[in-house]
């Protein structure tokens, strides 16, 4: 076992770190107080440098794509990465991007659809893709920190089936979702740790109170386990490992998100502080692919019944 990246992965991650530390990735409030800040320039930097194709590179692989998704989820700015760097890279590399993913109900609102150029469907027994022509998507005003939209009722899309097993694709998408959720938890945790280290009440930093330390330490334990389970699932690419990583992270995320908001106080409820950028992605991702109950039951089925 080796928990450290190989040489190519290390180089990939170090260039990525420069990009995620650049001002494009950082916090700025949206001029219209929208809940997300799509960074077209960060997106372009990543695309131009081939980052989104890493899953197809033998020495980088799905582990690199999961790491990429995780690291981008840690920054306040938004880029469509999870679907592009996993499903598109592995199953439909010629599809235009950004892409949106339909997991279950083709009429439900999903992230990125209003800005996506293509959509991938995993709800049937085949992997289906379609390009999005103007007018087929209806934007939805949403609680969550993504551009959200749904397919307009009666919209005609030109669905094409692509090669690949839909169970494998769902496993890959579970890995991507787990990695993105783990990254959101870590991004939010880092922001709250910074806040409670600086904010003083009762003559000392909030972070010196043991009640807060212990709950943040518990959150850190879960976030760390989630990160490694996501990477292991990416390395193994089995439905069991994918369901485990996603189910564990979703189950853990409820309490973690609640605590992150708790310790940020009223400031965490504003759109002037970035906390919501992580927590209002996490709250949606917690329900992804059926949510913790469905994914933990899927893990049970894979582990104990070979289903």
């Amino acid at each position, binding site marked *: 076992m080796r928990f450290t990246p190989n040489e190519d992965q290390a180089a990939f991650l170090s260039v990525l770190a420069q990009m995620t530390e650049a001002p494009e990735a950082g916090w700025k409030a949206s001029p219209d107080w929208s809940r997300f800040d799509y960074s077209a320039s960060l997106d372009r930097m990543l695309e131009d440098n081939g980052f989104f194709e890493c899953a197809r590179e033998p020495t980088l692989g799905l582990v690199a794509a999961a790491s990429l998704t995780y690291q981008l989820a840690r920054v306040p700015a938004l880029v469509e990465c999870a679907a592009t760097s996993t499903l598109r890279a592995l199953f439909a590399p010629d599809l235009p991007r950004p892409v949106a993913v339909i997991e279950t109900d083709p009429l439900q609102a999903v992230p990125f659809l209003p800005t996506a150029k293509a959509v991938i469907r995993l709800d049937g027994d085949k992997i289906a893709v379609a390009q999005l022509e103007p007018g087929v998507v209806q934007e939805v005003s949403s609680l969550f920190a993504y551009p959200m939209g749904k397919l307009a009722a009666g919209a005609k899309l030109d669905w094409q089936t692509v090669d690949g097993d839909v169970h494998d694709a769902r496993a890959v998408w579970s890995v991507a979702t787990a990695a993105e959720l783990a990254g959101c938890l870590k991004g939010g945790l880092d922001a709250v740790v910074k806040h409670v280290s600086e904010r003083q009440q009762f003559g000392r930093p909030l*972070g010196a109170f*043991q009640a807060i330390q212990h709950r943040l330490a518990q959150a850190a*334990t879960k976030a760390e386990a989630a990160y490694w389970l996501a990477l292991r699932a990416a390395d193994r690419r089995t439905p069991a490992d994918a369901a485990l990583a996603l189910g564990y992270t979703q189950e853990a995320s409820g309490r973690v998100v609640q605590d992150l908001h708790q310790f940020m106080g009223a400031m965490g409820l504003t759109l002037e502080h970035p906390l919501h950028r992580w927590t209002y992605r996490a709250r949606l991702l917690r329900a992804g692919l059926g949510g*913790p109950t469905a994914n933990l*039951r899927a893990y049970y089925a894979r582990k104990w019944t070979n289903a």
Partner: protein
Amino acid sequence: MDFEWSAEDRAFRARVRAFLEKELPANWPEIARHGPGSREQTEFSLEFCPKLAAAGLLMPHWPKQWGGGDRPTWEHFILGEEMWAAGEPRGAQYMNVNWIGPTLMRFGSPEQQQRYIPPMAAGTAIWCQGFSEPDAGSDLARLRTRAVRDGDDYVINGQKIWTSYAGLAHNCFLLARTGDGASGKAGIAIFLVDMKTPGIEVRSIPSLIGHGDIHETFFTDVRVPASARLGEEGQAWSIIGYSLANERVGIPRYEMASRVLDQMVQELRRRGQGDDAVIQLRAGSAAANCEAARILVYRTVEMRSRGEAVDAEASLARVAVAEAEQSVTEFGMEFLNDAFTGDDHPVFLAHHERAIVTGIAAGATEIQLGLIARRWLGLPNGAA
């Protein structure tokens, strides 16, 4: 990154399993039911460990110089998983393998090494750890047992408590204060004490975790030669820092939890309850907690195998392990209650009995959470 066992690791695990299969008697679950500190299990270990040693499976990771095989850290860990999951047939001797032996190799005098390491390597030495005292638990630096220099000797007076295995131990790895009462961490030394020395009295404490496991150990005018001191006066704290870093993730408790959970699910499936959605959810969740604990523990082992120092990573792992064990116990108690109220599932009972320890021994969960907060998250120092 690579999260799979190597072919070599797998072959080693198969060897350990084959050995256990062959050497554990049919009534082993009954013996193991009473815990690693019980008389039954300790006596068993004195027969079992020499066989392990002869097969090269007692301390494969130790240096050749001390009878080991210079094998990778991972083999030590695979061995620990298989032994603990089997109910720990090494009894108390896992401590020698995990940390007392390595501590003596690093800090012992040549005489101490010659005297104590060969019996450990032969599988015939039982040690106990005399750290905790009635007024010094989590706050170990407050310990009061005194060792006063008298010519070429030290005279030791004081009381230890919760001392596992003390009833049958040959030797004690003892912490005592050589400085004055206010000397704190800087005034403590380690003594390697023969448990037959006059003045030592051991009383077993009746407990929830198996008979003969924990004890009170009294020291009244116990005279030991100065050569029994390990390291210098005042050096104890840095030495045990090294020792306990090895101990904190020393017991692979998630492995037993995960195997017990597997047996619980098999039993429920036999009973035709495998399709119950609630059981599937709760079992999936408990299994996920076991895997979370496992991967955090593996991360620390992997760091150690690369020679990297393990710090708060060990605390993260321990917090997750305590949670995993608890969720497996709760699962069993809820869905297989009759297996816990009766006595035909000794393995379930043994798990139930042991799981209560994890959040307390070797540094309570709150102590681990404090370490994570300050050393992992970098939060400011609070009250304790």
